[in-house]
């Protein structure tokens, strides 16, 4: 589904990603872990199309299409979803209004009829239950004055509404208490299917108790330096990242 080959990206001339290779197949959950500043969030942003990052080398194929050639909105319409680490507050735009605009643009791109108000509301009700989000929250301005947990639940709610093929969760667990973490993870798990894939970007192993990965990759200095199964995450939890850093740094000097 997703094939990243030798991806290099930089911001304002500073290289952040230095040759990422990653294959993600339908039905899989991949966790990207790594110490702060290793490039995890950059990878998520580059995949979603954030303009500040310049891709200097490499290619990304998503369902056979050159992902990097597409505008951010077309990536979303093709089925890429980024759950933001820091969801943006947008005063004056209600979640409901915004999502209806988004959903209908996505549907139009996919050759589907737009949803009328009634159908949209019933779909919303169905998806709201998934992340235990209150309708009152959704009639308010997008994320404005939402708690950290409410913002993250709203991200997963949007994901549920847009039914992406590939979901990228960027540090979705940061700042969540255990209850919120459970709700968010449940939502993600219910949305998983044989046809979809998930990339979970996280610093901590804790989230992976709830969203169990098929593969775990460790990112360090802009490269994937180690890949394994969920046991690798547990090892990292126990031993920290230093041993990996040492391993990589010593080979680099040789």
């Amino acid at each position, binding site marked *: 589904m997703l094939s990243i080959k030798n991806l290099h990206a930089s911001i304002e001339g500073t290289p952040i990603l230095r040759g990422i290779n990653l294959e993600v197949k339908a039905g899989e959950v991949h966790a990207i872990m790594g110490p702060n500043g290793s490039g995890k969030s950059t990878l998520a942003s580059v995949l*979603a199309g954030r303009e500040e990052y310049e891709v200097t080398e490499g290619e990304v194929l998503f369902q056979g299409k050159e992902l990097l050639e597409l505008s*951010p*909105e077309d990536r*979303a319409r093709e089925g890429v979803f980024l759950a933001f680490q820091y969801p943006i507050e*947008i005063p*004056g735009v209600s979640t409901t209004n915004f999502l209806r*605009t988004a959903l209908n643009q996505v549907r139009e791109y996919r050759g589907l009829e737009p949803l009328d108000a009634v159908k949209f509301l019933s779909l919303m009700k169905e998806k709201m239950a998934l992340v235990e989000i209150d309708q009152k929250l959704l009639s308010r301005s997008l994320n404005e004055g939402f708690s950290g947990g409410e913002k993250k639940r709203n991200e997963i709610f949007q994901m549920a509404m847009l039914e992406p093929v590939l979901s990228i969760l960027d540090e979705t667990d940061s700042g969540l208490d255990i209850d919120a973490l459970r709700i968010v993870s449940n939502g993600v798990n219910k949305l998983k299917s044989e046809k979809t894939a998930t990339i979970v970007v996280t610093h901590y192993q804790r989230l992976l108790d709830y969203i169990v990965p098929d593969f775990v990759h460790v990112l360090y200095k802009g490269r994937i330096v180690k890949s394994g199964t969920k046991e690798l995450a547990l090892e990292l939890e126990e031993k920290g990242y230093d041993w990996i850093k040492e391993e990589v740094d010593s080979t680099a000097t040789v």
Partner: protein
Amino acid sequence: MSTLTQPTFVSGLFEVLPNNFPSLRQMGKENFYAQGLPELKAEEYKFTPIAKKLETSLTNFSSANPVIISEEQVKSAVFAGFDGVVLVFSNGQYLPELSTSVEGISVRLLSENEATPLGSIAKAEKDPFVALNQATFTDGIFISIEKKKEITLPILLLQFHQANEGQVISPRIWIEAGDFSKASFIDYSISLDDTPYFVNKVIEIKGGIHTDLTYHSLQEENNQVVQVNALVTDIQQDSQFTSTQITLSGEMVRNNLTLNLLGSNSTGNMFGIYLLNGKTHVDNHTNVDHTFPHAESNELYKGILADQSRGVFNGKIFVRQAAQKTNAFQQNNNILLSEDAIINTKPQLEIWADDVKCSHGCTVGQLDEEALFYLQARGIDKITARGLLLYAFAGEVLEKIEEESLRNLITTKIQERLGSKF
């Protein structure tokens, strides 16, 4: 004094004056000569070189005569959903045969009512453009709201403008509202073609005690039009006055808004949106004068400026010594969409009372790129996303407009503009 302009264009205008209000016109002339057009460096017109603009725009030194307006033109100008009184004007001249009325309102030509104390609220000695209008207005309108009448239907003043190139249009409006009355006006000015002209309009509003008056103004004239508009109102005790100023086009537009709070428990609201592109230049000068204790003023102007447009906002708040317990709020926010757009914004507070709450703030920024990306990342195309964000920015002012048909009209106009042009 602008030596180039003044003799030619003023003497041309002053040559043929109507016979009514002779002494008032004479005073207008004298006051105009005493003040002259604002010089280039005049503080009040520092960013709006109106005299210079008039020199180049005014090529025909005469007042525009009324043109014939058809019923169809009126029909197509009255916007969807509007249900109310329609007063039709052609180049400032009231056209009773095309207008409607409702019980509780009396509408007359100013020439039929020479006792009207014109100039007692908008004072010729304080403003050369008011003086010029006072000397040259062709005719105008006198609107009176009966005491204790709450006019629930909105009153639409449809101002059709069409002049020979470079002519002057001088509308004059006098509104008085009896005690305990309520009324809402919508002043909608429309150009019938793309010919340049100069509108110099004066509106005086005299409210009784315990009145609730609203004056909306929607400016959508052609991009060659130069305008100076004065709206001056006296607000008595226990009364509320709300001004909403929406400007969408024009070449150079100057709006002078003055609210005199002349009683306790009075409220003055000043709201505005300017959505500018091309080379449109819009200057909103507002002035609220608190003279009695326990009065309140609220001001919120929002600007979106694209291309090489220019905006000026100057908000004066006076709080006189007697005006203790005043609450005065002012806010001006701007989004610049291009590197060539300019905004000059200036709050100007003069406070002599010591027990007051006054706040003011102005911001100038660009469109929030993070927010834009967030919307795009959900599948919304860039133009729609931009429109959503800008519309939300202006929304805070739009939601203050209680008249639904007008709010819908402005909403549609803004959305059209944001969707296509921006």
